[in-house]
């Protein structure tokens, strides 16, 4: 585009306009970044104040988070490992939210996929080796996708609100995962009811000398591919049109029913993959009543990133550090680990408020095309001097 513009001669209108417009563009382009950073800073300050009220030193607390989540080798590796699981959930949520489908049943999809993978993996991986690991990831994706069929069907055919149905399927999924683990997949070993343990050497391969498994590579590839799919392919555009305006989608000749099924299935499949990666890489076994409830925690991050896959990577990285470091930090401060929930909740509040301020500011500025504004100013200046 820039090559097509003729070189501007000094004094011509284009030369006067160009630097100003570039400044505005840069500021406009940086705005989403500020929009994302301000709530994070405010949430950290507000949680710090809460710590002061509770009689803890917030600087010690945040230092402990950084030390244990980022600055030690062990902590950093744990954070990266956790990122793999969370990124895939984020990917699943982005697909659904972009199509304006509220998939709030992520935990059920995740746990059910995890239960199937944990139950089948020990025997499958033993007989098939590394191929077995790939098969298990596919199994996780299929289970996750299948668990969205009912909400997708009810939404597409009868317009039943998907918040209700995904929440109900969520509760059923959690209970069903436990039934599977306490029943068909139960190990013979005594102790807490759980599935057979996948031996360490059979789990997802580690990267180099680290304790980080290849899940992170899978997750990053998925995120980049998803970003490409949503922004550069017809399917991505269709999903966004469906999300922005279902009626417009019909007028454009899209098939909302089919798209609803596709978006839901992709969402469930990615979340199921996350459950599979977590079982095959991190845990190796599903313990009864296990529920880390990652699904709801990732929702705010996806919003904060405005459902942009690449921005989600940054926020998930930050959150993984807070979660891993926060485990030790809350223990040292003798507080429940639920402190992290406060931080995430505050993050969401401040995010919506920042958005509110932005809209208010945008509304206060009267919209006048730049050329017209310059012309009016110039006229006014000429009249003033005359």
């Amino acid at each position, binding site marked *: 585009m820039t090559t097509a513009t003729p070189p501007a001669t000094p004094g011509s209108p284009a030369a006067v306009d160009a630097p100003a417009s570039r400044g505005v563009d840069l500021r406009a382009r940086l705005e989403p970044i500020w929009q994302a950073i301000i709530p994070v800073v405010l949430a950290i300050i507000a949680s710090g104040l809460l710590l002061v009220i509770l009689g803890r030193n917030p600087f010690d607390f945040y230092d402990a988070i950084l030390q244990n989540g980022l600055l030690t080798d062990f902590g950093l590796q744990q954070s990266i490992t956790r990122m793999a699981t969370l990124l895939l959930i984020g990917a699943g949520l982005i697909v659904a939210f972009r199509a304006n489908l509220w998939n709030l049943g992520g935990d059920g999809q995740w746990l059910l996929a995890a239960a199937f993978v944990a139950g089948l993996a020990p025997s499958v991986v033993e007989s098939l080796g590394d191929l077995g690991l790939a098969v298990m990831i596919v199994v996780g994706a299929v289970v996750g996708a299948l668990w969205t069929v009912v909400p997708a069907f*009810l939404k597409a055919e009868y317009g039943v609100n998907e918040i209700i149905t995904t929440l109900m399927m969520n509760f059923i999924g959690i209970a069903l995962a436990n039934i599977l683990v306490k029943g068909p997949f139960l190990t013979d070993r005594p102790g807490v009811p759980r599935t057979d343990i996948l031996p360490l050497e059979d789990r997802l391969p580690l990267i180099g000398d680290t304790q980080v498994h290849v899940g992170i590579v899978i997750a990053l590839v998925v995120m980049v591919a998803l970003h490409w799919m949503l922004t550069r392919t017809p399917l991505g555009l269709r999903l966004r049109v469906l999300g922005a305006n279902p009626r417009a989608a019909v007028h454009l000749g899209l098939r909302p029913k089919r798209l609803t099924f596709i978006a839901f299935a992709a969402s469930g499949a990615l979340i199921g993959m996350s459950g599979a990666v977590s079982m095959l890489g991190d845990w190796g076994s599903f313990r009864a009543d296990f529920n880390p409830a990652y699904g709801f925690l990732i929702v705010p991050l996806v919003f904060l990133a405005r459902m942009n896959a690449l921005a989600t990577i940054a926020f998930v990285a930050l959150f993984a550090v807070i979660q891993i470091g926060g485990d030790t930090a809350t223990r040292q401060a003798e507080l429940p680990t639920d402190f992290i929930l406060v931080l995430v909740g505050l993050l969401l509040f401040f995010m919506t408020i920042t958005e509110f301020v932005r809209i208010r500011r945008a509304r206060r500025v009267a919209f006048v095309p730049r050329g017209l504004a310059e012309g009016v100013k110039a006229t006014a200046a000429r009249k003033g001097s005359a």
Partner: protein
Amino acid sequence: MSDLFTEPVLTALIAGAVLSMMPIMLAALGESISEQAGVLNVGLEGMMLFGAYAGFNAAYYLHSSWLGLLAGALGGMLAAVVMVVLCVQMRLDQIVVGVALFLFGEGVTSLLHGAQFGTDYPRIGDVVELKIPALSEIPVVGESIFHAHPIVYIGIALVLGARWMLKSTSLGLSLRAAGETPAALDAAGVDVTRTRTLAVLACGALAGIGGGYMAVISAGTFTPMMTQGAGFIAIVLAMLARGKVLWVIGLSFLFGISLSISTALQLAGIRISTDVVTILPYATVIVVLILFARRSYLPSALALPYFRGER
């Protein structure tokens, strides 16, 4: 199977159902009112936890279950104020704020309780129950329904009152208009923001009493995340009741039964996994939705902020 319908089993079943249905019923009633006014309150669980925490503390320090329930209502309303300011006054996204309120409520109540008591979970003394003289002598239903904390009857009365309010008063009409076509309500000279504010505050108070009930009367203690999804169940029930609040009683009783059935069956000597039992109500609803293909009717302006003059 013959000893399944014995008196102690049925009594345990119904008494357990009544005990466990109340918080869900109160919260679902609040959610119904809020939804009728066009505000989808996803943060119901957070409001219940605020209510449970406030209620427990009041009952623990002031030694009164009534003050506990009152504090529960205030705690729920405090959380509702956040919702009012952000969603009704500032017109921000209701689902995002709702999820925030849920996470914040879970975190902050657990944090405060942890900072206060560490890993101790002090208990409240037994609460006084009301025994209605003649009726409580009836077998099965007498002992289970007419021998309970008076809040149970107040709860039922609240549902009936809400039904009357929604159907037969001008306030009820305003509330429903605020959820259906807020622009028409505005044109009729009623303040949409004020109407929705009232609805959300009422929802907070009811959810708070529900949470307070869980802490003060059912459990007698506060444990972090003690509501265990009751708020979400209440949202589902409110949506299924489709604004007909009497349905809320029936649906919550159904849930109450499914929650108490495993205890009752144990009395009858039948062991059944609680996981299976928890699935039953949801599975029933899903099957009903698939078979009868009913549109779950929702107010048309639900979850949409109202901007005056916007088309």
